């Protein structure tokens, strides 16, 4: 969406933003002052879809001068150090952690904060000498990240193999209770030991992370990858140029029948979104000089050939609910067989459309965009009608086994990421194996990503990232908070009621 000059004035004098939030926000407003028809060659038709909210460009701006998500291969630093920053290869844990912190501050993204900080346990483990003192260093390192990378989309990975460093990271995560960095265990039943998996389950209940990703499935679909931002699976040493999303819940308002929606509206809007994405990528590669100027490219942390782009959707539940109404069926998505059918028809059609579209500079994914189940970190009122991704609306969820099976069937479409989250009650802390059974079961049924937390904890997962309940309350009372994601959290909760997600209690 384009901005107006007035946005700058109101941001400058906002009462609930830090200096840094104002700085980044004003930069973003600046990027949206230009007319994309002039800067990117958007057509009038494309503009209409942004203005009527059917397509959301997540305020990426109209002079895209860096990729949205960057997934550096930090092993390059361990091997070579960094020439541009004049740092030698690390020789011990101190020079490693220090060097990584320096590097992070030079990794751009759409929010200007790094969304991927590496496979932390693999990076750190070779440097572990004395567990006791190294633990203190790891904990300090993680805490440093929380206070300086003030954006919970920042994501670290651990696993699949159990390491000493992996255990120390989990221990620190529980002690710190910080929202950042987000953390994912790359889970592979063949490679991840049961002890490590159980430790991760326990940590997840106590600190709302790590989440669990289906390493085997992603490795097959994306190759070497990192889990970044919310739960996006993106090529390692690459990333995603851009992410736009279709608001299915908004598009459906124009539909006169299910057929009309799937055969007419969906292809029409999807094609416009694809062509906008093409134009953004072209600008980035051909005009912004990002890949020519960044030391990340020159020194091999990233390679332009490894970049792809994400074709997102939100509001599947809302679209399906509306179409069920049009069909005269009094059921809701999540508890309706016909609803599931409509959902699959929408997504297979979209998969087909996206599979047909030839996009520029997308070598790694054969010229095709990857579907992404976006979770709507947006303050826009329009998102009230667009439930995150393919999730069931809060309050319309079926019992857990049915919920899992329903959701599992939709994961296959979203190669660049989808995930579900479930709140569990306290009793599971004494029965970690039971929770691991559920996670393993979900993966065997085609889940890509699953995460859990205790309903009553202060750290809560909003859609894919973590916020402190208490911080969101503070922001809602017009007080300044540290993280931009706390502000998103406030918007998402007001729109989607996620803090009241159904808890799984079984006696």
């Amino acid at each position, binding site marked *: 969406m384009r901005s107006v000059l007035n946005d700058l004035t109101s941001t400058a004098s906002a009462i609930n933003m830090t200096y840094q939030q104002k700085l980044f926000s004003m930069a973003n407003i600046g990027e949206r002052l230009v007319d994309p028809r002039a800067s990117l060659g958007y057509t009038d038709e494309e503009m209409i879809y942004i203005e009527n909210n059917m397509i959301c460009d997540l305020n990426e701006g109209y002079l895209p001068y860096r990729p949205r998500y960057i997934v550096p291969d930090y092993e390059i630093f361990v091997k070579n150090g960094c020439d541009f920053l004049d740092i030698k290869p690390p020789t011990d844990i101190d020079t490693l952690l220090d060097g990584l912190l320096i590097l992070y501050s030079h990794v751009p993204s759409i929010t200007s904060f790094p969304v991927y900080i590496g496979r932390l346990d693999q990076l750190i483990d070779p440097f572990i000498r004395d567990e006791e003192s190294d633990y203190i260093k790891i904990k300090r390192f993680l805490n440093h990240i929380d206070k300086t990378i003030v954006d919970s989309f920042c994501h670290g990975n651990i696993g699949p193999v159990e390491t000493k460093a992996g255990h120390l990271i989990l221990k620190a995560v529980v002690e710190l209770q910080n929202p950042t960095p987000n953390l994912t265990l790359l889970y592979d039943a063949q490679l991840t030991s049961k002890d490590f998996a159980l430790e991760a389950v326990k940590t997840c209940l106590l600190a709302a992370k790590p989440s669990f990703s289906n390493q085997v499935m992603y490795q097959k679909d994306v190759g070497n990858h990192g889990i970044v931002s919310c739960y996006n699976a993106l090529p390692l040493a690459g990333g995603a140029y851009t992410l736009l999303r279709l608001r299915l819940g908004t598009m459906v308002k124009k539909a006169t029948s299910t057929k009309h929606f799937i055969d007419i509206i969906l292809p029409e809007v999807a094609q416009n979104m694809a062509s906008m994405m093409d134009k953004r990528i072209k600008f980035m590669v051909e005009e912004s000089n990002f890949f020519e100027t960044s030391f990340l490219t020159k020194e091999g942390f990233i390679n332009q050939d490894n970049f792809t782009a994400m074709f997102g959707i939100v509001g599947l539940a809302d679209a399906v609910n509306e179409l069920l109404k049009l069909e005269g069926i009094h059921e809701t998505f999540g508890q309706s067989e016909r609803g599931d059918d409509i959902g699959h028809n929408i997504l297979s059609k979209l998969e087909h459309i996206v599979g047909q579209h030839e996009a520029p500079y997308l070598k790694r994914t054969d010229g095709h965009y990857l579907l992404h189940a976006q979770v709507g970190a947006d303050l826009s009122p329009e998102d009230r009608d667009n439930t995150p991704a393919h999730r069931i609306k809060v309050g319309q969820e079926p019992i857990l086994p049915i919920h899992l099976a329903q959701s599992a069937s939709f994961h296959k479409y979203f190669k660049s990421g989808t995930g579900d989250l479930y709140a569990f009650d306290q009793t599971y802390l004494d*029965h970690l194996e039971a929770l691991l059974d559920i996670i393993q*079961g979900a993966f065997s*049924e085609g889940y890509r990503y699953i995460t859990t937390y205790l309903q009553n904890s202060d750290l809560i997962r909003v859609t894919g990232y973590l916020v402190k309940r208490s911080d969101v309350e503070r922001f809602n009372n017009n007080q300044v908070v540290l993280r931009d994601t706390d502000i998103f959290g406030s918007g998402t909760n007001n729109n989607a009621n996620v803090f009241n997600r159904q808890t799984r209690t079984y006696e």
Partner: protein
Amino acid sequence: MNQKILVNQIIPFSNVDGEGNRCSIFVQGCQLNCLYCHNSETIQICRHCGICVEHCPSKALSIHSGLVVYDESQCTQCDRCIVVCPYQSTPKTNAFTKDDLMAKIVSYRPYIRGVTFSGGEPTLYADFLTELAQKIKKLGLTVYIDSNGFFDFDAIFPLINAVDGFLLDIKAVDSIEHLCGVKDQTHLKNLERLLEIDKVIEVRTVLLNKHMDQINTLNQVADRLEVYPQVPYRLIRAHITGLKKEQEALVGEAIMTVKEFLAYGNHLRQKGFHNFILQK
């Protein structure tokens, strides 16, 4: 064969009825009547007297051809019906065939390790459950029976043979008649025989004061378990929540404090028995 079984409740995912995540199926009906039974509405089969029907505030109950019919979709789980039932029963049961139950279990299969039959007393339905257990085992799942220990071992041997093991209650020994209304000590004999053929998953005793011979019960179980290190002994402190008013009047004052309860753990330790779990 379209034989059906009365089921009080199915909990798709339970983490307390054996290792890992399990589906728990609670059958209706039990031949004992223990003072502290926390789900005493599972004891009797409904007599269709109709008393509960008029007490339901949500029109979830009705009478059709002399039978009380329960409509789950209208029920708010207020449990008024259970409170007013004079016969330790509930109208909220469903009759299922083996195929009905298998369909549910198949849909839960990816997420569970097995199925636990609880109750009520599952061994009352040994024939039905034997065949069902065989089908469940074919899915690669384990089957446990949660039993009060009072059954005719030889008569239900096919069931014993078909399942992986028992979660066995030893509620009391000398005071079992006062506590549960049975005269004999079949449960101890059954424990011995099940142990011999490696069919015990765990033994459980609910502890409360006054109404039972706590130390004697603990000793009797621990002595028998000594040579079976793979079988843990779970001690559970009786709680007041979940008791009906009449029960509360009867056993309320016999509920142990946590401190009293933990002392029984010490007793076992002093005896040299360590393979127990304390559930406060």
